[in-house]
Structures are given as structure tokens and as C-alpha cells.
């Protein structure tokens, strides 16, 4: 159960085909501009800064850094995507 950290829109395009069904995906920084159809997490602070907090789609779950750390406890390894 890997954890994919997506840092950019192009990072998401590269990440999407390389995920397994039991992996989780977290959008961070400019990654929150991505528009995945599947369920993903997104860092609340990063949505807030960019004006995207009220523009997320229903499949996006906004999380804190504390939530993020909890996810790292149960998912491994983490893979960063920034294409």
C-alpha cells in the first residue's frame, strides 16, 4: 500500500497510471490543482493558499499535516511526483 505524493498537475498525469488499487494519493502544494476522478487526499493549507478550498470535487478529501502523518504510518513507501 504505497502513498503517492503529487506536487504538480503534470505529476498527477505521470502518477495516475502507476498506482495500484490499494495505494493512496495525496495532493500537496501545486498538486492540488490536479483534478483526479478517483478518491484522493489534499492538504487543506495548500488548498486554502491557492483559493481552491471551495473548489474541490467531491472525491477530494481535505486533510491536515497531522492527518498526513497518520496516513504515512499505515502506507509505505511514499513516492513523490513532480513532472
Amino acid at each position, binding site marked *: 500500500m504505497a502513498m503517492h*505524493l503529487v*506536487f504538480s498537475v503534470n505529476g498527477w498525469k505521470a502518477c495516475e497510471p502507476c498506482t495500484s488499487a490499494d495505494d493512496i494519493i495525496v495532493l*500537496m*502544494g*501545486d498538486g492540488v490543482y490536479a483534478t483526479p476522478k478517483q478518491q484522493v487526499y489534499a492538504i487543506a*493549507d495548500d488548498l486554502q493558499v491557492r483559493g481552491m478550498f471551495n473548489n474541490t470535487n467531491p472525491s477530494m478529501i481535505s486533510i*491536515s*499535516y*497531522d492527518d*498526513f*502523518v*497518520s496516513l*504515512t*504510518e499505515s502506507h*509505505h*513507501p*511514499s513516492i*513523490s*511526483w*513532480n513532472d
Partner: protein
Amino acid sequence: MKYTLAIHGSPYASGAHLQAILLCEAILRAGHTITRVFFYHDAVNVALNTLVAPQDEANLNAKWQQLAHEHGLELAVCIANGLKRGVVSTGEAKRYKLDHPSLSEGFELVGLGQLIDAIATSDRYIEIPT
């Protein structure tokens, strides 16, 4: 759990440093330990001792120093990546006959092996990319 963090992004051409600082704080809040924070690629520039942060922007160097001071974090700057980008310790400044060192207090120059060693002895490796 034990975590190793790596930062790859430039302090002013990426958001990597503030993301990493917020993540470190959350890891420590959760009761985990951070084996080492490793600066690689253009991220090493945050360790320069001459950075003058604008008054209305975060002082990334000071934030790292404070975090390291409060929690005994090891801020490890890749020596090969650092030297070519102008980040030199007192020892390296002497070796290369430079007028002065440029490495901030709280940071240290280490070999790339220290990243691998930290990964090998940690449960988690998280990387904030360029």
C-alpha cells in the same frame, strides 16, 4: 516510528521548504522521531549564512534553525551538492582557500552516504521534490 526527510527544491523556486517544515512539525507532534533531514539538489541553498529574508516573507533558514534547535534535529546538507553551489563549512573554506565559510549554524555538510544510512535506519522516507 523513525522518519528520514529529504528536501530537493530550491528555497525560492519551489514551496518545498515550508512544506517540509510543516511536515516535520506534524511528525514530531505525533510522537515520532526524525533521524535526519537531508538537503539535496538546489535545496542546499537554504543553508547559506548570508540569506536576508524580505520582511514580509518567511525566513526559511531561521525556521529550519529554530526547528533543529528545539527538537535536536540534524540538518544534513549534501557536501557534493553544497560545495558546487557555494555552501562551505569552516573546514571546507580552509581546504579550498576561501575567505570565509558560508554554512549557517545548525546545518552540517555530510556525504551522500548519510542519506542512505538514515533511510536504512528509518521506518519511513519522505521526499519533497524540486
